[in-house]
């Protein structure tokens, strides 16, 4: 009987179903995309999970890490690797006739060799006035090995162009210049390091090292801020998760709107079926049975639409991850930390969102059909039979 009612109003049924499908696709595919973002972010930073970042506590007015502090850090965390970093985010210079601004990093030569791959030329040795340039910077300004860059009026020769860095890294050199530590000091005469990265030799040492650093460096005053990479990853993951939930909630609103459409369709159905309801009541249908016919109709609608919506969301979630993930986090299939769309689709988070979308689709359909179904059950058979 219910199938017959649905078949009778094909176009109307189809339009109502479409609304639910769109809502379910919105919730599920946004959730899948959010899961992909979280997984990719975690994967990207996986290699950095053993890092501790020490920065001067700028809130308390400390602008630099002193050499003494760095020596202290080396002593505390030994044998972990310590990478002190100079950074000038707003370096002024000149390339040929053009005045340019760029980021400049100053690192120990041995650290440079570990952190970066040189595409052309060679890495820096000693403390000559030489630099390495990032891939995109070299490309934008047509720099190659042997080119000259003036930094703060001092001529610096390009010794090498770096490979393009994709994904998470301690330093992002693509649009920057790298100087050996002494060269940087000659150019900028810094008072101290801008931050220090510690790479623990074992992952399980990260926590204890963090505690030791806090106890020693901030013994009397909070001169430094200490964050582990896992803190940073957790923060990023939380933010990404919140964004995904917010977007999914917007998807849920669209589903509620579709539910109102369902209620409207069902009410129209009840009105059109008034006479038939009267006939059924006359021949012995209980009000509850009339109500159940309409609820069953909406259950079928809800299940069918939610199922189609969930299947479509697998496709749309797949597409979203292929198209948008590289844009959001710069990770494509060749990057370290790339998570395949199949992995994302089968991740627990994605399955939860698909399940939620499916269940919410049915729930909204049923809830919005409750009033029309109750209205149908209350139809007076005498009045209904008189209706033409």
């Amino acid at each position: 009987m219910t199938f017959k009612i649905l078949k009778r109003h094909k176009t109307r049924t189809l339009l109502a179903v479409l609304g639910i499908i769109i809502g379910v696709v919105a919730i599920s595919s946004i959730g899948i995309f959010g899961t992909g973002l979280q997984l990719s972010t975690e994967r990207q930073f996986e290699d950095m999970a053993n890092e501790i970042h020490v920065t001067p506590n700028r809130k308390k007015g400390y602008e630099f890490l002193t050499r003494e502090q760095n020596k202290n850090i080396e002593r505390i965390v030994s044998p972990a690797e310590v990478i002190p970093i100079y950074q000038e985010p707003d370096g002024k210079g000149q390339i040929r006739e053009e005045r340019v601004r760029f980021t400049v990093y100053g690192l120990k030569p041995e650290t440079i060799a570990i952190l970066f791959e040189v595409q052309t030329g060679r890495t820096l040795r000693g403390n000559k006035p030489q630099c390495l340039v990032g891939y995109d910077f070299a490309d934008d300004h047509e720099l190659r090995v042997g080119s000259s860059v003036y930094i703060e009026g001092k001529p610096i020769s390009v010794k090498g162009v770096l490979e393009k860095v994709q994904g998470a890294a301690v330093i992002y050199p693509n649009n920057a210049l790298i100087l050996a530590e002494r060269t940087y000091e000659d150019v900028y005469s810094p008072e101290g390091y801008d931050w220090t990265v510690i790479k623990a030799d074992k992952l399980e040492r990260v926590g204890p090292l963090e505690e030791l650093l806090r106890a020693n460096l901030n013994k009397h005053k909070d001169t430094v801020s200490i964050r582990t990479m896992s803190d940073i990853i957790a923060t990023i993951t939380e933010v990404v998760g919140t964004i995904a939930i917010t977007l999914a909630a917007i998807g849920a609103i669209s589903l509620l709107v579709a539910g109102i459409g369902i209620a409207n369709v069902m009410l129209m159905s009840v009105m059109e079926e008034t006479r038939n309801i009267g006939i059924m009541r006359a021949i012995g249908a209980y009000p509850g049975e009339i109500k159940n016919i309409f609820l069953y109709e909406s259950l079928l609608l809800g299940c069918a639409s939610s199922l189609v919506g969930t299947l479509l969301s697998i496709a749309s979630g797949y597409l979203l991850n292929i198209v948008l993930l590289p844009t959001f986090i710069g990770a494509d299939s060749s990057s370290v930390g790339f998570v395949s769309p199949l992995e994302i689709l089968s991740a627990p988070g994605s399955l939860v969102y698909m399940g939620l979308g499916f269940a919410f689709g049915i729930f909204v359909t049923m809830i919005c059909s409750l009033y029309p179904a109750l209205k149908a059950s209350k139809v007076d058979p005498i009045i209904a039979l008189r209706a033409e």
Partner: protein
Amino acid sequence: MGVELIGVTKEYPHAGGTVKALKGIDLEIPTGDLISLMGPSGSGKSTLLNLIGCLDRPTAGTIKIEGVATNSLPDVELTKMRRNKIGFIFQSFNLIPYLTVIENVELPLFLKGVEEQERREEASKFLNGVGLVENFFTHLPSELSGGQCQRVAIARALANNPSIILADEPTGNLDRKTGDMTLRLIKELSEKFGKTVIVVTHDIKIAEYTNKKYLLEDGKIRD
């Protein structure tokens, strides 16, 4: 006794007052009898039929169907009475337009929870009984003539094996010849299955088919 009415009154509220559709009806219809209720338009025929058919309750008085007083039954029990004891034949057939012929006849059995196979067999039996062969079973009501639709309606009214069949102007939408055939069929089935049949009509010629005629005038029965 098939149907018994004792002092049945029905009033409706209207424009601050009340309208008395039925004024103290007393009536006894023996089991298996075929009677007609005649009267002009507005005489209360349909109201009386609705009360006997447990679609409505009297304002006062008692209605008994096979000895059971229905006026005091709760709604659930009234529905049960209609489901098990009463069959309706309407003037405008009142078939469900998107159910096939056989599905329309199966409907009362579906509501009673009869299994599909048994439903199909019973429905086929009643359709054959009213002269409709299997070719018609998958037709929709819109594909049938008026007479054929009324036959389906009669088959449906019989499907739940009721004790009482209420026919409200069963030939009202049929031509004379088809109407005569329909009444003959109703009479034949009443005698064959021993059903109490109450036919409401304004047409004396229709009433001639019944064993007893009652005239309803201004809410009262006149023999």
